[in-house]
């Protein structure tokens, strides 16, 4: 499916989706509560069949966080990027997609650890790298550490 077709079809599924076509892939920007309703058909519909979640990450934009899901299909070989915007910076929450792609489980642990995003319905949410005693979320822009060496 080309970018245009994807954009058209996705617009049908989610009314609130905004699109950004400047980059290499089609970017779909949605608010965080809309994530599951959009992403489930993307995985399950035969025409999309985005079965391969190859990159999950989070970007801290200071006044909001955005979760970035890079999806591709091993069947159709088309790619799209779903960006879910989390507006609540102090207590960010989003639905887990670990039930849809198993790779999300460990990756969401990493994001929880480094960004502090809580994933709802995640089977085993824990701090993967830093341990439970660690204060703060290092990859946030406002994170400061007294031991940090500034070069």
């Amino acid at each position, binding site marked *: 499916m080309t970018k245009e077709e994807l954009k058209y079809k996705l617009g049908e599924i989610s009314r609130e989706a905004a699109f950004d076509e*400047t980059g*290499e892939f089609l970017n779909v920007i949605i608010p965080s509560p809309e994530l599951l309703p959009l992403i489930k058909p993307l995985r399950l519909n035969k025409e999309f069949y985005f079965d*391969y979640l190859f990159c999950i990450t989070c*970007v801290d934009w200071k006044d909001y966080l955005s979760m970035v899901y890079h999806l591709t299909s091993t069947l159709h070989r088309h790619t799209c990027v779903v960006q879910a915007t989390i507006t609540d910076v102090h207590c960010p929450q989003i639905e887990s997609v670990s039930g849809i*792609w198993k790779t999300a*489980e460990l990756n969401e642990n990493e994001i929880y650890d480094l960004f502090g995003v809580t994933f709802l319905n995640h089977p085993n949410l824990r701090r*993967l790298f830093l341990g439970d005693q660690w204060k703060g979320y290092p*990859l946030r822009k406002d994170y400061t550490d007294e031991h940090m060496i500034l*070069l």
Partner: protein
Amino acid sequence: MQMTRKPSDITTDAKSGEVLHHEGEFIINMGPQHPATHGVLHLKIWLEGETIKKIEPHLGYIHRGIEKMCERLSYRQFIFSTSRMDYLSAHINNQACALAVEKALGLEVPPRAKAIRIILAELTRIASHELWWACSGLDLGGVTPFFYAFREREAINDIMEETCGARLTQNFIVPGGVMSDLHHNFQKRVKRVLTQIKDNLHEYDEILTGNIIFQNRLKEVGYLSREDAISYGCTGPAARGSGLSCDIRKLYPYDGYEKLDFDEIIFNEGDCWARYRVRMAEILQSVHIIEQLIDSIPDGEFQAKTKNVIKLPKGQFYQRVETARGELGVFIVSDGAATPYRCKFRSPNFSNLSAIPQMAQGAKIGDLVAIMATVDLVIPDIDR
């Protein structure tokens, strides 16, 4: 009849009330210091006898926050830090970063630089697979293969040292090309190494591949179906052993791989033996790629002209390459400044690690070692 467990059979945590383990089960911590985890990987394993019930990876023993570091480094500088992620394919990691920057800038790399990059990348891949072969023999109890593979790997490292200046963390790539031209001995020595590898590969087969003990240790062990490989986001030889076509060099060619003739190695069995054969065949494919290029490296510049301070346009850029272990993705979010706003490395080992609990379900401890050997984890790449 359904088995019911008495409450007394369950050990719970005094504080949280969480179920720790059942009667007859016991937990061992494999790692962070363990001979078979090749680094500081910590696997918490629930065992029943010798059979593995559940595995939980605990990470972060060498987490250095490379992604955070990259936010403070300029686009010329941040390349070097990726050498420390998957240190066995350092050159390919550097290539990924440089490609991402070049893609964002729309920079055309001179053909000579492209050829040099590919040759060095394939040499890195061979060296990495040699080390993997050496260590997988060692993991399964055969010490001797280790030295046979290191003989060839040393020869490759010598070439790297001569041309790049370093044996392992080369940092030879800059945005727009490579740091310097090839050493005048390069072609001669590469050809010699290729002949050496081709002459010695039969020894690998004699001592490990054809060995009945080795084959029995790998066959029908650590099964990963194609669906699971996709779902776990596995890439590289680990996924290609499960029949998933995922070679970035074929699917999304970069640096001129599209002009080269090579095969994507795919086996459908999904067990350790399939993954083993994928890697063994990939060594030959890499040899084949280098052979095509080594006599026809184009003349010309080895570096495109770039500005002193590189500033990327605003936007998000994703570049993937095929390292020796699978797909490495570099995701750069730029806000137009001279440093990346956010830099994410999608490392192949992290996803491959997440599939290990699935593969090792119901296996023995010895099998887990075989699985980890054939998945070929590099821990610094997981922890980043």
